[in-house]
């Protein structure tokens, strides 16, 4: 017969995987509920919700890119700089009078190329850790961005270029008011996150990315070309940072030298809050989305309540530490030694 203690332990063992997967969603709902009660008029209003999505739009692209890198047990510190360099190239191409489709495609290509530089540096130059390679390129890419732009903002883009970051989808045909539009960036976030989910969970390359994070030697022994996959992963991360630049160009209507400064740290924080593990091989696309949302909602909610931005820093830091401590506890409980 099962003892009470045994039953309790079984219950924990059975619920841990669910808690592991969806626990962070609970935190998000809790935050939304609390903020709704604190700011019943404003917080869940159409205007404020779309605002939150617009604010997290480019950050979510960086976070998703950093996430796939973290899954391989790597790190990319250069995403903020990649975004800034891509944005500056976009601004210069636009200023030079290039057609809008060329202006749109350049930041994405530049982003992917920068990411490829990271990937090739880590694999071919055999840098001891991705931290070092991407720390180097953090400076190199931002410096390059300032060199080509002269370190001054370049403003004024065409409507087509600004569509992704600033476009609105009219919903009046649904009987909604004109102010209740859907930002194009929301649709973009949904599409990009869905594609990334499908890629990571339903293709062989996606599976191999997780395998490399779990045990690179196992991946090698299974005949997987680990270096090739890593170059793909860092290039994809750069490509997403290029997407971030395109969105930011639409929102800010300007390429400016401080774009994406410290954004890599926000991106890493969102991944960690969302349950990605620095040990690699763990984490979900949904988790990253929730991580980005938690940071966005926290900032938005505290702004609404007029809390000082210094407190925001303290709270975000605290959430990171707690989230990682949960990861440590989970590792203790989930594995046998």
């Amino acid at each position, binding site marked *: 017969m099962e003892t009470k203690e045994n039953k309790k332990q079984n219950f924990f063992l059975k619920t841990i995987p669910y808690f592991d997967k969806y626990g962070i969603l609970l935190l998000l709902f809790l935050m939304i509920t609390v903020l709704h009660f604190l700011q019943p008029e404003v917080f869940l209003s159409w205007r404020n919700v779309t605002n939150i999505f617009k604010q997290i739009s480019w950050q979510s692209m960086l976070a998703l890119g950093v996430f796939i890198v973290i899954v391989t047990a790597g790190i990319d510190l250069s995403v903020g700089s990649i975004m800034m360099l891509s944005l500056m190239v976009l601004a210069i191409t636009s200023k030079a009078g290039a057609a809008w489709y060329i202006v749109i495609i350049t930041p994405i290509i530049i982003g992917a190329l920068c990411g490829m530089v990271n990937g090739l540096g880590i694999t071919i130059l055999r840098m001891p850790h991705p931290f070092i390679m991407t720390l180097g390129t953090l400076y190199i890419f931002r410096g390059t961005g300032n060199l080509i732009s002269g370190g001054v903002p370049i403003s004024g883009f065409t409507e087509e270029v600004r569509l992704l970051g600033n476009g609105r989808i009219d919903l009046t045909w649904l009987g909604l008011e004109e102010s209740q539009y859907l930002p194009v960036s929301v649709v973009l976030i949904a599409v990009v996150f869905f594609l990334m989910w499908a890629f990571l969970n339903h293709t062989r390359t996606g*599976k191999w990315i*997780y395998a490399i*994070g779990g*045990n690179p030697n*196992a991946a090698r*022994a*299974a*005949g*997987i070309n680990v270096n090739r996959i890593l170059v793909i992963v860092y290039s994809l991360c750069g490509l997403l940072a290029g997407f971030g630049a395109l969105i930011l160009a639409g929102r800010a209507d300007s390429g400016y030298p401080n774009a994406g400064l410290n954004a890599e740290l926000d991106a890493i924080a969102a991944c960690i809050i969302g349950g990605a593990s620095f040990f690699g*091989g763990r984490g979900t696309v949904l988790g990253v989305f929730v991580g980005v949302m938690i940071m966005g909602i926290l900032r938005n909610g505290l702004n609404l309540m007029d809390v000082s931005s210094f407190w925001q820093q303290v709270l975000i830091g605290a959430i990171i530490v707690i989230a990682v401590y949960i990861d440590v506890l989970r590792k203790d409980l989930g594995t046998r030694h």
Partner: protein
Amino acid sequence: MPYSNKIILEAKGVSKYFGTITALEDVNLTIKEGECLGVVGDNGAGKSTFMKVLSGLYKPSKGALYFNGNRVVLESPRDSQNLGLEMVYQDLALAGNLPIGENIFLGREPTKKLGFLKLLDYKKIKEMSEAHLDKLKIHVKSADQKVEELSGGQRQAIAIARATAFNSKLVIMDEPTAALAIKEVGKVLDLINSLKKMGVSVIIISHRMDDIFAVCDRVMALFQGTNFAESELSKTSRDEVIGWIMGKK
């Protein structure tokens, strides 16, 4: 234990040099279909180097390999896998964060087509791995269980299952019981016996005389990179084999 007389793998005059160091000098080996060969030797005798030559990880400096009577040149472990020659590494080479089934098929996942896309066929992975585990009488709760949740013996069993999932003809195991608890050793040895019954040849590198004498048909000893002695298991004794390891005949 009965096995056929068909030679599946033969190594003739294999030497391997690393710079000025001679790791192997003129080593020969034959193994027949369904046979289990134990390879013993002291540390540095060249066992692991020799196995890496057989699995295609190292290219021999001299000598040749014959598979089913045909000369083969192995450029990489993938080449040897394609011939049906698999290696179970000492560090197991499993990804703990992935489920059992995905580990068994890692790098060779079955896919289904959706338009021009090739998507992973999870249903097939689960069905095929459960059927394969059943065939080897490996009992786990489910093929969806993550490898990091398994015990050392279960992991070793999964590593062996992985090596035999693609109609392999010969499995090379490097110290398959070294890291296991005593009661798990028996299960792994049973598993090796059931492989032999299925006609799979097995080469075991081991320090443990108990293992060698429990499953092997023949034992060969390497000493300082050369063939030192070899015998049918029934015609030798533990003390004699231990003597070979120390270089005494």
